[in-house]
């Protein structure tokens, strides 16, 4: 019980962001339950309550696997009596609790609705099963992804395979697959298999990003056989011994794999929805360019002395590297986009040039946002993230989903202005960079 309470604290209360999410989510939930604002009909407070609950359970339900790996890597943990069992029990408890809160929210949202709109008991069990399925999937997938992202694809396929087979053979209603008994049973099976492995394995290794930070230096300095110029060595260090074309190739393969899965699952939905899903997913490339740039900013500290440059010269050089990576990733995404454009009949109404720009300009913004992370992270960064996400949604996903033929050039222009602002902000931050504080932050 005590371990469960500690895990609850880690899941809901460890970081300032989690505390804000929990508190704000609880406030929104309470407000929704007390005031029943007429947001839509027939579920009067549905969005408000789910917004509150969603914020509360966001981290524990969807990032639990990452926390579990972080807590499990210590060797000293192996010497704590029944430690792994307790951690697993705690993680399962949090999953159950989050799923119950989700169901409770459903009940609370429809509590004041007329009787004919209230969902039947069967609906609640379906929601519970769906939430638990998603929770276990995310816990296992993120546990694995935090070490080796490619294995996650296998987990997703294994989890979805029975439902997919039923779906293809027309046995079951597609909308009920996630909460259906077969899919739910598979989730339990995956969770049990994971638990057995987790309890039996001797050593659980640290997350991939932690490992790469250490390994990158060794690889870059020790196992590179051919002599390298200073710039080549700096570039290898910055990209963890990768190169811009290699990163582009990885993105190309990952995009093809993800879109392939999406096409398998969603090919029977209407064309607009499928286009919105697929191109919207490709626009997530902004997260990749942001993450790579952020990693470059973090690694730049080690280049401060060997680079032989002032910090602004160093920034200029790293910015060029970041743009090269963005270009390589952009080319990869562009190729996949054109493939989707060519295969996806009927084609979207908006022009291809706009479509590509609407995917790549947010990636450019995210690249500079990543470079900004070298120093002084704060509210501005959160606002920039929201602006980029909003740009993707309103400039790309929404026009595709609604089938609108009008390109949102105004939105694109706004994002270009945002890109320029972020670039200026990154430059300003680098000018006053405090390496020590950046490391602590």
């Amino acid at each position, binding site marked *: 019980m*005590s*371990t469960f*309470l*500690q895990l609850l*604290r*880690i899941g809901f209360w*460890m*970081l300032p962001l989690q505390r804000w999410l929990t508190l704000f989510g609880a406030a929104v939930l309470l407000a929704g339950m007390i005031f029943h604002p007429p947001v839509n009909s027939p579920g009067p407070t549905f969005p408000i309550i789910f917004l509150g609950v969603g914020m509360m359970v966001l981290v524990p339900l969807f990032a639990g696997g990452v926390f579990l790996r*972080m*807590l499990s*890597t*210590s*060797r*000293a943990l*192996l*010497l*704590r*009596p*029944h*430690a792994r069992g*307790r951690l697993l029990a705690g993680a399962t408890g949090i999953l159950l609790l989050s799923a119950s809160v989700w169901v409770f929210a459903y009940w609370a949202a429809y509590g004041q609705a007329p009787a004919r709109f209230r969902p039947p008991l069967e609906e609640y069990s379906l929601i519970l099963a769906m939430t638990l399925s998603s929770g276990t999937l995310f816990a296992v997938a993120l546990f694995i992804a935090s070490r080796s992202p490619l294995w996650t694809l296998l987990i997703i396929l294994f989890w979805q395979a029975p439902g997919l087979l039923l779906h293809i053979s027309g046995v079951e209603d597609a909308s009920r697959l996630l909460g259906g008994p077969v899919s739910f049973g598979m989730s339990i099976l995956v969770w049990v298999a994971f638990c057995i492995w987790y309890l039996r394995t*001797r*050593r659980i290794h640290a997350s991939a990003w932690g490992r790469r930070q250490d390994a990158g230096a060794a690889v870059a300095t020790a196992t590179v056989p051919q002599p390298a110029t200073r710039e080549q060595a700096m570039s290898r260090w910055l990209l963890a011994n990768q190169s811009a074309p290699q990163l582009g190739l990885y993105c190309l393969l990952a995009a093809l794999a993800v879109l392939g899965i999406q096409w398998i699952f969603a090919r029977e939905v209407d064309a607009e929805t499928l286009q919105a899903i697929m191109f919207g997913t490709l626009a997530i490339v902004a997260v990749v360019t942001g993450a790579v740039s952020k990693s470059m900013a973090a690694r730049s500290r080690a280049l401060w002395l060997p680079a032989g440059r002032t910090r602004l010269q160093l920034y200029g050089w790293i910015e060029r590297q970041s743009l090269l990576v963005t270009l390589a990733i952009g080319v990869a995404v562009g190729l996949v986009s054109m493939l989707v454009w060519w295969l996806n009949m009927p084609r979207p109404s908006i022009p291809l040039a706009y479509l590509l720009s609407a995917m790549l300009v947010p990636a450019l913004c995210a690249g500079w946002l990543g470079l900004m992370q070298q120093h002084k992270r704060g509210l501005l960064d959160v606002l920039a993230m929201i602006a980029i996400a909003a740009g993707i949604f309103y400039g790309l996903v929404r026009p595709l989903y609604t089938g609108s033929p009008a390109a949102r050039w105004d939105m694109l222009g706004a994002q270009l202005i945002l890109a320029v602002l972020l670039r200026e902000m990154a430059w300003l931050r680098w000018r006053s960079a405090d390496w020590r504080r950046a490391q*602590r932050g």
Partner: protein
Amino acid sequence: MTSEAVIETRGLVKEAGRRQILKGVSLQAAPGEVVGLLGKNGAGKSTLLDVLLGFALPSAGDSRVFGESSARLSAASKARIGFVPQQDELMSLMTGAQHLALAASFHEQWDRALIGRLAREWEVPLDRRIGTLSGGERQKIATLLALGNKPDLLVMDEPASGLDPVARRQFMVTLLEIAAETNRTILFSSHIVSDIERVASHVWILREGEIAWQGELDQLKESTVRLLLRAEREFSAPLSLPGQLHCELNGCSAMVVLRDWTADRLPEIERATQSRAELVPLTLEDIFLAVHA
């Protein structure tokens, strides 16, 4: 296996690929002993500790802790062990207090008073996130985590390497107090020979995966001596005396380090080398260097 031994290994072998890291290590530690594990970099110290605690499986041989196989320690035995790794494995997002609270939740017995006292004495900032702490502060938290369950066996891998001299001295004093309080066994590896000399009652010296010496520190210092030999004529060839670890010739004088020393060997050596012998005191560091010469 001896029933009262806290740690006991027989012919322990650990291989990594084709390389043998441990080559038939046999050791024993009894309750109340403070054992210092000495060895050069890559001698196999951390691997030995890993196998002893069950983090890694031996390729051959047997390792037991509290009479149980290291690979299959029961929960009751685990509750009696504390471990401080060489590089702390703390979660950088958590604070020290959160780490301690989580660790305490795994144990039925957790000495909050001791941890509170040590945290104050060692000036550990428990309210700050681990990621913002210095290496020494993190090491102190890792040590607190190992002490909270009042372990009967405390194993530490280079526990004081990240501490400044003041903190290291304070740490060692505390270690001695803790060892003296109960019949607790402490096993710690270190490169800092003076630390081991100050607190250890027993020493294990590991050389290239083999035990070069194990036993009481006092006995080691008594049985290993340095002789300054002064002869009438120059020494023409290197000396080869029984138990000789190291020899330096310098014209008519020679400095030899001998093991398995007993006082009655002196006349015999003087006769054999045709010189006058003078005993020169040795520190543990001298012995360590001679063993690795």
